[in-house]
């Protein structure tokens, strides 16, 4: 799966090449433009995003909502169809309270970061019969596949006073492996773009995603250091639901 970004890159290149070959026959997008970039902020709810370990089971994040920044580079292949290369990142904080293996530590706040790179296929639609509107304006619907990487890092140590926070962190670093796991997923997105002027569009949309984690064995084979505990990620998939708000700029 480490080759997935390459596959995405190749697929995107292939799409662009094919559509360029047929460019004369196809209708380009809005006002003849083919490329647009889009930046979005997506308040996203992570459902069943639980953290498990030998000492912690099904620990939910402090808040299931994360504000996800997302940027995408989009290429309009023909009239209402476009492909998108998308990057996004989200963060969740899990409060791990059952940390008995770290003496003097009552709670560890673990920040889990999810980075995703995806390839999306979209089209702008019109419910009535007839050809669709030129991308990217109007209603859009599409799906995307992505590959992602999850990593966890402790941010705060709450101690009982017997140890300093720095000590706790040192002990954690020596005893724990930060969780790191890859995942794949897909999402269905729909929304609407309204042109604010000839070049900038406001987008509003919904996004339903599903992340499937590739492995729960997130800890490496521990080194000679004493193994205190390991945080693992639940092997089950996690659903996401996001509201996307952003701006798209038509390039050329």
């Amino acid at each position, binding site marked *: 799966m480490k080759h997935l970004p390459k596959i995405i890159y190749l697929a995107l290149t292939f799409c662009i090449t094919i559509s360029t070959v047929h460019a*004369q026959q196809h*209708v380009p997008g809005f*006002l003849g433009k083919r490329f647009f970039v889009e930046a979005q902020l997506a308040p996203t709810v992570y459902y069943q995003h639980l953290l498990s370990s030998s000492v912690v089971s099904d620990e939910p994040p402090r808040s299931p909502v994360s504000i996800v920044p997302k940027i995408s580079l989009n290429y309009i292949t023909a009239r209402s169809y476009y492909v998108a290369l998308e990057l996004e990142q989200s963060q969740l904080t899990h409060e791990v309270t059952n940390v008995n293996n770290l003496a003097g530590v009552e709670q560890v706040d673990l920040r889990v970061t999810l980075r995703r790179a995806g390839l999306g296929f979209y089209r702008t639609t019109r419910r*009535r019969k007839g*050809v669709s509107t*030129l991308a990217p*304006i109007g209603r859009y619907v599409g799906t995307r596949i992505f590959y992602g990487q999850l990593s966890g890092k402790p941010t705060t140590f709450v101690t009982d006073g017997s140890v300093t926070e720095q000590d706790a962190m040192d002990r954690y670093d020596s005893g724990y492996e930060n969780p790191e796991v890859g995942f794949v997923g897909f999402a269905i997105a729909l929304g609407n773009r*309204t042109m604010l002027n000839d070049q900038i569009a406001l987008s509003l949309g919904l996004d339903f995603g599903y992340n499937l984690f590739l492995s729960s064995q997130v800890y490496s084979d521990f080194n000679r250091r004493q193994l205190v505990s390991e945080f693992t990620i639940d092997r089950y998939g996690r659903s996401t639901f996001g509201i996307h708000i952003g701006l798209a700029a038509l390039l050329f």
Partner: protein
Amino acid sequence: MKALWLSVFMLVMGTTCLHSQELDTSPLESSGTLPEEVVTSPAKKYRTALRNYRIGDDDSQRNQFLLESTYVLDQLLRSGYVLYNDPVGAYVNDVMETVIAANPSIREKEPRAYVLKTSEVNAFALDQGIVFVSLGLLAQLENEAQLAFVLSHELVHIIEGHVMDSFVEDMKIDNSVITTKDRDGKQFDLAETMKNQYSREQEMSADEIGAEYFLKTNYDFTSIVRVFDVLRYGHLPFDEVPFELEYLQELSVTLPAKCVIEEIAPITPPEEDEENSTHPAIDSRIIKLRDRLTGLDNEGRQEFLVSSERFEMARQRARVTLPRLFLEEQQLSEAIYTGFLLEKTYGENAYAKEIVGKALYGWARFRSNGQSRDVNSPRWKKVQGESQALFHAINKMNAEELTLLAITYNYARYQQEPNNKETKAILIDLFGDLYLEHDIESLDYFKMASSVGPTESTSVSSEEEKTEEETESESKLDKIQRNQQREGYENTPTVWDKTMFTAVLNDSDFRALAEEGFDYGKERQAEIDFYEPETNRERTRLRKYQKQREKRGVSLGIKRVTVVNPVFIHLDQSGRNDYAMDFEKSEAQQQLMNDVLADCAKDLGVSMRTLDPAKLRADDVDELNDIAVASSWVSTQLDAEDFIYQAYNRADMEDFAERYNSRYVMSVIAISVAKRGLLAKLFSSGESLLLMAVFDTETGRRSYVKSEFIQFYLDRAFLQSEMYDALNQVVKSN
């Protein structure tokens, strides 16, 4: 020497005079500088009207009236149906000036008259001070005094502000009266009845005061009562001359016997339902006027105060224009009969024959393609008077017979003028229809008749010997047969078509034209076959084409195009199923649409010229005339839904194409409904209908680059999207 010069001078003058008496068949068009009120934007006119009428914002009804009437009037003034600086209009204004001179108080409203290019017999006035008189009415009036009386009547409507009063009254009635049911449970529209009552009162008042205006002039009043009969019988042609079927018979062809009408329906006054009419019954109007005129002295009064020659000129120009208007209005039988009348009234002329040829061509094409309903001529049984013979003959002929008749008539014209491209196109089209619609694949179908012309009657002598008693005992069919034999028609319709071309069957020109026409038919057949596949391979090919078309649209490869009369209608959704046109927004959106279209054309490298009536300037009179010609052509092409009407008005459109350096004309019609609310605006919520069609003026072919409902309001972005897409389809080639 002096005598020689004098005789030369006399000869020149004589020739000039003779020439001036020739029938002027040139089309009536606007000329000179367009009036200020035509080139001023409706928004500006509306603001001026608000000031002039001193209407406050609180008077919503009058405000609404001014808004609507200003925009509707503006559309009419720019439609191309109104003539400016034309000789007929100038004459009508001079007659109106005679009435105004006798009634100076009228002048403060600055009344003016325009002539409307419509065959309808009508005159009407708007509060803005404009009287419209139709060419249909001018063709039927008998003298100048009658015209003066009509104008006097209409001037009253202006002076009294009848149109605004009527509008306000109608709104009040609508707001206060609810529709009720009578005892039988039928819906009884009280509001409509009340509105009609109000309108009738206004008309009676216009009759009374108009008569006073008129009587102050020195016009003869003996014939003005007959104006009401002009209106009453306005549906009849401008003259009653027995129609001779021989008129349609060219190339020694005789019409089938079934075309002969047994008896012409007598002319009866149309039934009037006063309660449901906006106008009072004509009889009561006549009685009132007669009462007023009783006892008055007509001595010294004249029928013509301006000029009898100019009246005759105006009437003649109106009568000559009528058949052209009938053609445009798809009243094809009326066009033929009026052409016939022109020849009867003004002598044989090529113009009348051209009209008749085109009307027969139109009839044949519409009938052959199953679109008879789109021809606006009534069924023969509903027609009264002498023209019924023609309506009957046309109705009785089937599509094939009409096509053959149209071919013979137009070929006779072609023989007179072999270089006429339009006639040639008509003939090719008609032969094409023989192939496509009537399964006649070559001239071999036709055979030489043993004798040319009407079959000689063999029993006429014995008929003549019949006693009166015997005649009375004849059945209806016997009578018809006797009538037909007397007229010299053969009663053998089954072979009628096969011997049609006897006179020209060996004519090389005729054969060449037929060949070209049949080839055109074959070409069209191949195109039609593509859409009606029979084998799996053909079906697959069609599916692939349709899929591609749905995905990419069409590829026309056109670099130059003329956009004619683009229209944007903005509707506001005020209720669930209640829409109201927003005139001001429509104007703004139309402007935006034109701008977007121009920008997209520039981006895509399309050389585009837009003929938009809203952008006319004072010296754009030629453009206005061109808009009228092209709009009418486009509208007729759209009427011909199921076939290619390639030769219709081809000559005019060739000139048009040459002037604008493009044979392609594009029509753009957008109707867009906007939903209310901020969110609706953000999401461009609404519904739109967009029609963009490109016509080839040479071949009559058309391609709809946009013909669809859109699930959005056509705001700037969606206009940009749709216009770009459409023009891209126009410009790109496969």
